[in-house]
């Protein structure tokens, strides 16, 4: 009994209050919603809810790494449509799916590489560089497509939109694999743990022999590659490619990561699991407004309120912890 008790308290002491609170708010939200909207707790709605936010969820994984390293990446809003358009171009010219997808992902991580190179050589804040690159990509996307949607895909590709893996839609499976990969890597892989060091204290990391520029390069390339994956999945889901995809996705993704407890002030604190919780939270909010029939105008207002509230709460817990010491 006594052993059990101490194990219990060990578990309790390891619970992250931020995550718990997030969970609490989410559960309350779900409770209220299920009262207002009978469909809310249905399996169909769950599926749609996940679908609604799956692209942001994938990009949020990469964004978490970027923010952990102390940076930020606004290019995702340009890369997502760019990758879908590139895929359409390549497959339209007769290439089959896998080589085309691989080229697109590699090509987009090259954009991440260039972004990071510009950041480094021009000594600019990542926000500024990524903002500029995003604007340039938008121009490129418009020029390539001429503004109209591209749907020049072979039928085999179109069939992929209803493909399932273990009974799950393709995008879910991709997300689960990626999320598991990043959870494991950030816990056990040296290169990924370096991201925390670099975000926590770049100078110290440098003195400890970490090649910090290489870490920055890695996170921006990963973030770009994940945005490319999201773009490819979007193209698969809708059998189309358009410059309009991913509009404002950068802000949604950053909001997700911030709500998930990854700190934009103190680099190096946060986790993939937190981001996944944040993702779920955002998915619930985005779904709840449509399901409840409340005006979606309030959706922006509420996202803003929850974002600030979540960060306030985590600062509050940080304060409590400090006070207790």
């Amino acid at each position, binding site marked *: 009994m006594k052993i059990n008790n101490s194990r219990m308290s060990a578990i309790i002491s390891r619970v992250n209050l931020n995550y718990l609170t997030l969970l609490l708010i989410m559960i309350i939200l779900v409770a209220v919603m299920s009262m207002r909207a009978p469909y809310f707790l249905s399996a169909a709605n769950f599926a749609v809810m996940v679908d609604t936010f799956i692209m942001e969820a994938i990009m949020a994984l990469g964004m978490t790494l970027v923010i952990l390293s102390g940076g930020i990446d606004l290019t995702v809003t340009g890369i997502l449509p760019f990758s879908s358009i590139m895929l359409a171009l390549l497959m339209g010219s007769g290439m089959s799916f896998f080589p085309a997808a691989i080229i697109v992902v590699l090509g987009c991580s090259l954009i991440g590489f260039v972004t990071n190179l510009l950041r480094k050589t021009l000594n600019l804040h990542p926000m500024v560089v990524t903002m500029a690159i995003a604007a340039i990509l938008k121009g490129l996307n418009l020029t390539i497509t001429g503004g109209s949607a591209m749907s020049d895909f072979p039928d085999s590709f179109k069939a992929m939109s209803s493909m399932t893996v273990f009974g799950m839609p393709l995008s879910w499976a991709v997300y689960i694999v990626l999320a598991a990969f990043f959870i494991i890597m950030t816990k*056990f892989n040296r290169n990924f743990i370096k991201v925390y060091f670099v975000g926590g204290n770049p100078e110290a990391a440098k003195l400890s022999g970490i090649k910090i520029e290489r870490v920055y390069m890695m996170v921006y390339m990963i973030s770009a590659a994940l945005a490319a994956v999201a773009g490819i999945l979007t193209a698969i889901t809708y059998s189309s490619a358009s410059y309009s995809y991913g509009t404002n996705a950068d802000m949604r993704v950053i909001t997700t990561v911030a709500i998930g407890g990854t700190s934009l002030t103190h680099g190096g604190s946060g986790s993939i699991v937190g981001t996944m919780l944040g993702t779920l939270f955002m998915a619930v909010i985005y779904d709840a407004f449509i399901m409840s029939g409340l005006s979606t105008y309030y959706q922006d207002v509420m996202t803003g309120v929850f974002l600030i509230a979540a960060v306030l709460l985590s600062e509050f817990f940080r304060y409590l912890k400090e006070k207790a010491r």
Partner: protein
Amino acid sequence: MSVLELRNITKSFGANKVLTDVNMKFEEGEIHSIIGENGAGKSTLMKIIGGIYRADSGEVILDGKDVVMHSPIEAYEHGIGIVHQELSIVGNMTVAQNVFVNCEPVYKAGFINWKKMNSEAKAALAEVGADIDPEEIAGNLSVGMQQIVEIAKVIAKKVRILILDEPTSALSDKEVDRLFQILDDLRRKGVSIIFISHKLNEIIRISDKVSVLRDGIRTGTLLRDEMNEPTIIKMMVGRDLGRLYPPRASSRDGEIVLECKGLSLRNKFSNIDFFLKKGEILGVFGLVGAGRTEVALSVFGADNLDSGKVLLNGKSVSFKNPSDAVSHGVCYLSEDRKVAGLFVNMEVRENVVSACLKTVCNKADFLNQGAIGKITQDYINELDVHPSNCSRFRIRNLSGGNQQKILFAKWLAAKPTVLIVDEPTRGVDVGAKSMIHSILRNLAESGMAIMMISSELPEILGVSDRVMVMSEGRKTADFEAEGLTEETVMNAVFNTDGGLR
């Protein structure tokens, strides 16, 4: 054959020649100390060995081979490890992660073996005599503890050449003893150790050889039996310093300016009483973490007080923020000049007036650039800051000792009546140190009340008129400085009946 040899190393930053034709040899299994005034080029030399800078000319010869290193990583690969003066601890990671940063023990598949990492970290910490939980978040540790983790981190890398750049500045004497034991062990195992410190007694105690740098030139190397303080000091500054410490207060009957009664702050300190008299220096001694800085910050209004009274000139005051305190003539010179003292990317002149902006403004609140220039130049001359035309230099381009002088200038420009100085000579060489000591004395003689917080016992004994000892958040003793011995003070430190924590 020497393990490491430096031949004709020359290095300039712009027009400023930092090292000129420096030759040095480091042998296996010896502790070779390097000493010199600030700006003498010690840190630059170490950074060249550590691969952070490259020499303009000259060779770094490792095991008889000329090597060129481009980064700290390459230095590590050559078996050279540096314990830096600035801590390289990452606060949000665990102690174990910090110890094994970049060389985590892994399974065959490349995944980190957490269990092994924690147990090895525990062992590495035990080796340096510290009982720290490897799973603790490093940021939660005190500065002294972090310094120990830092040392453990480098030693755990099994280096052949170990460079320690002022490793003892944040350590208590007990921790220093322990560190020296470790260095002794390492020496016996054949590691060559390069030790940089400003503390002459430490250098003499541990070194096999000591090399002295002055203005980027090696002025000589002494063997163990040739070492003594006067000789070393003479080689460093090129002159006899005469007395190491300034005379004590000429008059002890100034009125009480600041009096504190029963100051308490939860988890930080409790029931602290002290007073400051005009013309006196009160030395506050304690180990790192004794709560000295916290008391100072609370008096200064930068932190809260749970209870207690602060009387300034007999009137009860409670400063809501530092700006309040400064306008009442109470100033606090912080221990960490880079984080809490200076604006390193701003100009010297801007730094000097940063605490007295209101006084250099006209009625419409516009800064008077002429006055700023004059004040700055006056203090540069008075405090002998080098170079003397540095008024428009950025702080980051000055050496540590000169930065510290600018920090003093900044607070002197605020015309304090009560000056609290926190570790005023941390990371400052002997020459600058004695200068700062005499500045403090002159200020006291001119009628200022000074409280000096320090972890260097000789400094406390040499400079203060009265001494207050703190330990674990409590005041444990009050002494008159005249005739006080180190033993008495240390006894007071350890004679506590159960601290706060």
